[in-house]
């Protein structure tokens, strides 16, 4: 883009989203009020597993304000099927594994919806829901995913022939041979837990059926507008073009909204059946029990190394807690399994995965999507090997990293699209060296000694992370210059707080020589563009950005072709700047874009300019051939209070390589948020259930998110290794910061407690367990 007169990409530009949000003028789904609107509340099962034997709605219907109560058979009247479709259709999973819009006869997790109450306000809807009398016949419960592998365990769902949804193997090479001949083999049993997504805005939907037009308008706080449109149309049995889905301002997603939920279909169906607007806003209590989580993975793994710590192989097995249903697929355990080898050269690898069903709410990926878990396994094994062999933790990593010279590095593993995992660019050793220099790793031993002399236990830890970003199959974008001069970018990408509108506007502005304030971005509105995939896998700047770039270039070409006919100069000598097409170096020779846009709109009965076609607009659906692998290296210092088991973060330094940065200001913010999400997973967030699969930590007083006082000032550095996978040279950002965090903190806690020989094998790190381990070490000595 050397020709462009105004550089926008790469600049720290303030976000176009912000002024409205700062004034309280954002429009979130909860802010939508429509005349005659009914408010919904769901009746949810208090049991983790039970038969629904009877539902009595008499008292509920007698409650002031209550208009209707709908159970499964009632809502089924408005649906082609009561069962949700599988999000990622595949023939490799068994049938009948998805949740119901409302469950007809069996509840399989506490929080599953059995009925829907419509009333004149949310207050009265809850009044009604509270007196819907549901008779339950409790059934045996499977609470711990490890029990799913036992033959005599109770069935999670009566219709399911096996509590293990599926098993699969990931691997390559000859692990048996490698382990047999290895100088050293070290095994670890690791338990990883990642709780809920917890965007500050929960889920929510407003649906309005227009019976005259036969059309349904839906506003949903979703990460996938088009999928919601297609699913609503299919399940309600109406034409896709009769359903419009708009994502208004979305108050964060983090994975929780990358799913078409039963509640969304229920509300859409209720709006159509009752021919009025219906609103449901998920409250926090509901988010805790009915929105997706990532939850438990139990890993039993071992690493084979030679005497110098060179990795010979990694193998083992993993049990993944899938929950009661499978709404989307098995991408989270698959990602985790394929992420283990990460940044390293691992010649032999073999992992057996058991996807285990439990009587708990279903799981799909949360920010990071299995990569933090896979990373934790590898990084813990490396720390263990380093410890056993007496090799410095930095050195063992250095010896095993994929080096810059090996890029692009093809792993003998396939991502879930079936493509070989190919680390496309980056310099992992340089990232490590930079961060260790900044945090003064060399001087840490002295600092530790000095602290110990004061009775303090401090430790330093480190971890690498790498993540495939920019998943396909495509993302849509159209760029249109209107005769008013406004430039509209429409995309199927979803804005949920990441600043994607600003990033896309920058790309369009630069390609069209336009100013930022001439651009409007419409994201997540199915009326604005016909296709779209949505927001997940740190993909949108890469995929939608590439589409915007390609579409904007087509518009640029069109504009110059038309201007070249008008000015009688070669299109090659023309350049777009500030709303004009001008002769390079001769700005007084120019044509306004507004005039070209007017011409290309067409004048009845007159010809268009030659050879360009109608409309100063273009659409692109850029398709990535491969994922772009962004990497990170984190190091941190912690202090552990050996009396309480409390862990305090003293310092956190991170480097991230996300290729070329479209807007460093936004990228930094994404990295901060990613790291702090990881800190939550490392130290605070535990979604606790009891042995009956009853959720216990169902408030923000029990389920702890990180707060400002628990987070040190984060030092964030960047390396920019452009990716050849896409025309922008970018890599994804949003999840990458999360990936190494649990590993780095566990490594630091180990180090702080080295004199006790403590090894962290579970996250979140529980102070009770830390004290227990210290005690055990002291008893042993």
């Amino acid at each position, binding site marked *: 883009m050397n020709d462009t007169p105004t550089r926008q990409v790469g600049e720290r530009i*303030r*976000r176009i*989203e*912000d*002024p409205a*949000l*700062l*004034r*309280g*003028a*954002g*429009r*979130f789904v*909860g*802010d939508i*009020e429509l005349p005659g609107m009914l408010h919904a509340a769901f009746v949810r099962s208090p049991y983790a597993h039970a038969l629904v034997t009877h539902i009595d709605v008499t008292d509920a219907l007698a409650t002031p304000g209550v208009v209707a109560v709908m159970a499964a058979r009632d809502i089924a009247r408005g649906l082609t099927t009561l069962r949700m479709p599988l999000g990622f259709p595949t023939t490799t999973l068994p049938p009948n594994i998805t949740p119901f819009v409302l469950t007809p006869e069996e509840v399989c997790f506490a929080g599953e919806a059995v009925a829907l109450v419509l009333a004149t306000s949310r*207050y009265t809807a809850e009044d009604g829901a509270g007196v819907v009398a549901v008779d339950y016949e409790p059934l045996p419960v499977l609470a711990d995913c490890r029990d799913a592998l036992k033959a005599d365990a109770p069935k999670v769902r009566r219709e399911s022939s096996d509590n293990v949804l599926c098993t699969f193997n990931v691997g390559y090479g000859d692990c048996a041979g490698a382990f047999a001949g290895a100088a050293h083999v070290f095994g670890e049993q690791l338990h990883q837990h990642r709780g809920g997504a*917890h*965007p*500050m*805005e*929960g889920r929510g939907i407003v649906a309005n059926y227009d019976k005259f037009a036969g059309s349904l308008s839906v506003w949903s706080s979703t990460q996938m507008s088009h999928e919601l449109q297609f699913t609503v149309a299919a399940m309600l049995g109406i034409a896709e073009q009769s359903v419009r889905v708009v994502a208004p*301002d*979305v*108050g*964060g997603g*983090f994975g929780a909204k990358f799913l078409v939920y039963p509640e969304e279909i229920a509300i859409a169906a209720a709006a159509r059946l009752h021919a009025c607007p219906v609103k449901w806003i998920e*409250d*926090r209590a509901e988010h805790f029990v009915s929105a997706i989580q990532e939850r438990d993975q139990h890993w039993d793994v071992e690493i084979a190394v030679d005497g110098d710590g060179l990795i010979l192989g990694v193998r083992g097995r993993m049990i993944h807690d899938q929950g009661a249903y499978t709404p989307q697929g098995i991408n989270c355990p698959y990602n985790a399994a394929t992420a283990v080898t990460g940044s390293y050269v691992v010649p032999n690898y073999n992992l057996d995965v058991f996807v285990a069903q439990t009587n708990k709410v279903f799981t799909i990926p949360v920010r990071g999507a299995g990569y933090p878990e896979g990373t934790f396994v590898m990084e813990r094994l490396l720390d263990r090997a380093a410890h056993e062999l007496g090799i410095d933790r930095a050195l063992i990593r250095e010896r095993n990293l994929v080096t810059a010279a090996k890029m692009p590095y093809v792993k003998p593993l396939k991502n879930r699209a079936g493509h070989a995992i190919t680390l496309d660019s980056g310099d992992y050793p340089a990232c490590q060296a930079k961060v260790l220099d900044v945090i003064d790793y060399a001087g840490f031993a002295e600092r530790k000694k000095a602290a110990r002399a004061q009775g303090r236990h401090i430790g330093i830890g480190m971890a690498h992370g790498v993540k495939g970003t920019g998943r396909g199959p495509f993302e849509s974008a159209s760029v249109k210059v209107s005769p008013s001069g406004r430039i509209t970018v429409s995309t199927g990408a979803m804005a*949920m*707080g*990441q*600043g994607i509108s600003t990033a896309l506007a920058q790309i369009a502005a630069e390609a069209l020589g336009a100013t930022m304030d001439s651009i409007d971005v419409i994201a997540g509105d199915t009326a604005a563009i016909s296709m779209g995939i949505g927001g997940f896998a740190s993909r949108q700047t890469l995929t939608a950005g590439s589409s915007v770039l390609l579409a904007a270039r087509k518009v640029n070409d069109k504009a110059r072709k038309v201007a070249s006919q008008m000015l009688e100069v070669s299109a090659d000598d023309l350049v777009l700047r500030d709303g004009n097409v001008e002769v390079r170096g001769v700005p007084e020779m120019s044509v306004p874009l507004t005039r070209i846009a007017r011409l290309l709109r067409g004048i009845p009965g007159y010809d268009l300019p030659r050879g360009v076609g109608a409309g100063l607009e273009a659409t692109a659906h850029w398709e990535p051939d491969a994922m772009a692998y962004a990497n990170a290296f984190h190091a941190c210092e912690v202090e552990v209070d050996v009396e309480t088991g409390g862990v305090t973060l003293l310092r956190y330094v991170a480097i991230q390589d996300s290729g070329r940065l479209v807007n460093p*200001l*936004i990228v*930094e*913010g*994404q990295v*901060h*948020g*990613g*790291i*702090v*999400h990881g800190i939550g997973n490392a130290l605070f967030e535990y979604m606790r259930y009891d042995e009956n699969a009853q959720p216990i930590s169902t*408030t*923000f*007083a029990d389920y702890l*998110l*990180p*707060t*400002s*006082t628990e*987070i040190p*000032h*984060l030092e964030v550095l960047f390396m920019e290794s452009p990716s050849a996978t896409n025309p922008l040279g970018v890599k994804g950002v949003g999840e990458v910061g999360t990936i190494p965090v649990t590993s780095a903190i566990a490594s630091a806690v180990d180090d702080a407690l080295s004199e006790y020989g403590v090894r962290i094998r579970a996250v979140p790190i529980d102070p009770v367990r830390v004290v227990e381990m210290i005690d055990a070490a002291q008893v042993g000595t």
Partner: protein
Amino acid sequence: MTPGTTSNQHAIELVVNDKPRAVTVESRTTLADCLRSQLGLTGTHLGCEHGVCGACTVLVDGRTARGCLMLAAQADGCRITTVEGLSGDGELAPLQQAFWNCHGLQCGYCTPGILMTLTELLADDPRADENAIRLALSGHLCRCTGYQNIVAAALAAVECLRGNA
């Protein structure tokens, strides 16, 4: 039930963002719901409705309060400031401007409550340092920013206000 003085409906008068407002509320209506649904001030958001996340924080007679932990009827006669009152439709207030400049928000859902807390803090302590800012912010949850740029924005606002003083 005592006749006369109270019932299930309460006609209340309050001053919201410097404008007198009269509204009739149910006993159980929370202040946050009243502001959002009855007064149309949807800038105040609900994130947890149990007093932890802080998204619904507003100023009641100049002091921060959780909008979900107050009944609207309790605000009778009070002066309420919400995010909409920080600058109206005019130029952004220095604190809002600092949030924009420093990328102190992402999804923007928690932001209104945080702006109200920092408005109170900077009024109490115009020279607030990072520690004081982090302490004040610890009453808020933000899932997007990791708090870092919120702290940076607050410090920038302190600088700006000091410059203007």
